[in-house]
């Protein structure tokens, strides 16, 4: 009973699929934006690969770029001021860094919303009260939170770096419907090609304390490195622990193999 019924059911599915094959057009809808969309450029960082480490000077520069440029529109709500101790700041430096931010609070006398100086236990404050305010201030585009951005985008840090350095004039052969509308900016690394964010960086925009020349490329690279850290502050530790675990298991597996061979030594199998 099972086999004849199964046979019929199978024929039914196959018939439905054959009809589907015959009626599905073999050509994809042409998508012109594919042609102009570029793959992100690779950004090599010390936190890459199997032996990563944090380049603290670079992360500090990246933090400076975030604070002086990006934080005007982008929040970093998963990162607390105390976390930047990882970047090589002393406790006192962390405290005064926190203090340079105003965080939302409540007026203890009136209960009205107010602000106070940041403490190390506070999180980076959002530049906007809420998403509606953020959209209203940005031509209806919502600047995404940057805490996880290098993990939340295909291409990760390469994408962030390419996007920041990729603003350019639209190519001459760009079809009219792909031309940037008012308030949008052409960037071949962005999936839609046109993005609401204006080119955020220009040469010499920040003054690095360590004297590094603040070219657009340098700042984009620094802030991308910083955003790799914000997305996964435990990255370096993770790989280090991983090596310890891996090497331990390598020995363990070797021993279990020898044990297995020994126990089976007198049994053919």
């Amino acid at each position, binding site marked *: 009973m*099972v*086999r004849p019924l*199964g*046979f019929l*059911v*199978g*024929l039914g*599915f*196959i*018939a*439905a*699929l*054959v*009809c*589907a*094959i015959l*009626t*599905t*057009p*073999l*050509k*994809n809808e042409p998508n012109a934006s594919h042609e102009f969309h570029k793959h992100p450029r690779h950004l090599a960082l010390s936190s890459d690969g*199997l032996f990563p480490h944090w380049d603290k000077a670079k992360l500090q520069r990246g933090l400076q770029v975030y604070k002086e440029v990006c934080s005007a529109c982008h929040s970093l709500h*998963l990162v607390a001021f105390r*976390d930047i101790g990882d970047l090589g700041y002393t406790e006192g430096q962390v405290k005064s860094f926190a203090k340079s931010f105003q965080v939302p609070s409540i007026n203890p006398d009136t209960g009205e919303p107010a602000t106070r100086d940041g403490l190390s236990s506070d999180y980076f404050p959002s530049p906007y009260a809420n998403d509606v305010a953020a959209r209203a201030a940005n031509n209806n585009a919502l600047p*995404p939170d940057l*805490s*996880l951005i290098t*993990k*939340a*985008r*295909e291409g*990760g840090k390469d994408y962030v770096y390419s996007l920041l350095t990729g603003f350019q004039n639209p190519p001459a052969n760009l079809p009219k419907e792909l031309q940037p509308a008012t308030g949008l900016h052409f960037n071949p690394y962005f*999936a839609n090609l046109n993005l609401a964010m204006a080119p955020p960086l220009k040469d010499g925009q920040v003054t690095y304390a360590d004297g590094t020349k603040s070219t657009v490329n340098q700042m984009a690279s620094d802030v991308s490195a910083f955003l790799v850290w914000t*997305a*996964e*502050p*435990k990255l370096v530790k*993770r*790989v280090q*622990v*991983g*090596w310890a*675990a*891996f090497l331990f*298991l*390598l020995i*363990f*597996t070797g021993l*279990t*193999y020898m*044990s*297995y061979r*020994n*126990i*089976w030594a007198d*049994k*053919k*199998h």
Partner: protein
Amino acid sequence: MSFPWAKNYEPQQPLMKWLDEKLPLPRLVYNAIGAGYPVPRNLNYFWNFGVLAGVALVIQIVTGIVLAMHYAANAGVAFNSVEHIMRDVNAGWFIRYAHMNGASMFFIVVYLHIFRGLYYGSYKAPREMVWLLGVVIFLLMMATAFMGYVLPWGQMSFWGAQVITGFFSAIPVVGDPIRVWLLGGFAPDNAALNRFFSLHYLLPFVIAGVIILHIWALHIPGSSNPTGIEVKDEQDTVPFHPYYTAKDGFGVGVFLLIFVALTFFSPNLLGHPDNYIQANPLSTPAHIVPEWYFWPFYAILRAFTFNFLWIDAKLWGVIAMFAAIALLFFLPWLDSSPVKSSNYRPLYRIFFWILMADIVLLAVCGMKPAEQPWVIFSQIGAAYYFAHFLIILPIVSRIERPLPMPNSITEAVLAKHADTSSAATA
């Protein structure tokens, strides 16, 4: 329930004797996975995957219980609570990544376990019940994995929940009410998240229960083996302990090496970037894909694009996707060949490998966006999948002429060793 030559549990110490009289738990373990369980001597490494699946389940339950101590099942804070685990909880990043990649490891191991069963005919009499219970475990695993993926409340979590519960709306008349009932709302939200958390916590223990039945059912005929010939006498078997505990120990070592490499060196390799964006009911990701272990089924779902007969394409897809798994329940009766192992089934073996390639093709199609040529590949792939089980397999099992088989497991083992030794001398 076992072979007459199985060793009997004889407690030595007075304490164990006392325990054996009051609660014969050590005896149960001894007979289940100890020296009291005779196992064919010729099992190859593909027989490691059952134990490895058990190990994977234990890892998932342990890490999961720990994560539940920190996770908050509330749509407002779920996403941040996962990031809290990743950033602030002591060793939280390790536990979370282990749980996330442990799910993938569990599926890798279970898929290999299933493919082993398909190649060596482990589903055939007298082990049909073992196979049926295995399919139940597989279904429960899929439900558990799906609900677990919703919990971090990222974009893929949300849209995965939306799409999968959307399957039910394909059912005529009652579909929409069922979907609303499942979600406790009109879109995934707090109610859905909380019930998914509750069930995600519950189901692994149900899986553990069905695994006990699976092992119980296995111990009645005893384990199958690569020749597919049943055990005839004591020579054919070795006691599970120490022989297979040692071999499984090695298997666990290799499993953990891969697991550790994945968890520590590339924890997001099998994940999706969109799940690091908090769920947003107003914005769909450009390209929704499920976790890799659902790709073949997702490809089957999307392959049906034609309203065939009086059933529309959407319902065809949903029916086909469920049928793709449900047909496994009928496999022991679809394949009527008395020969179990594909080593002696030249014709079936060819189709088995085509099926493997087909499943890989379907997986790739499931991962890709719904564009050509992937649509047509998924349609051809899905057609072969159903043809394989429902048409080819019953016919092949009738017309095939199996290769000559050895008389016993021992004979097969000795023949293999004679081959290798003569090859070595030659």
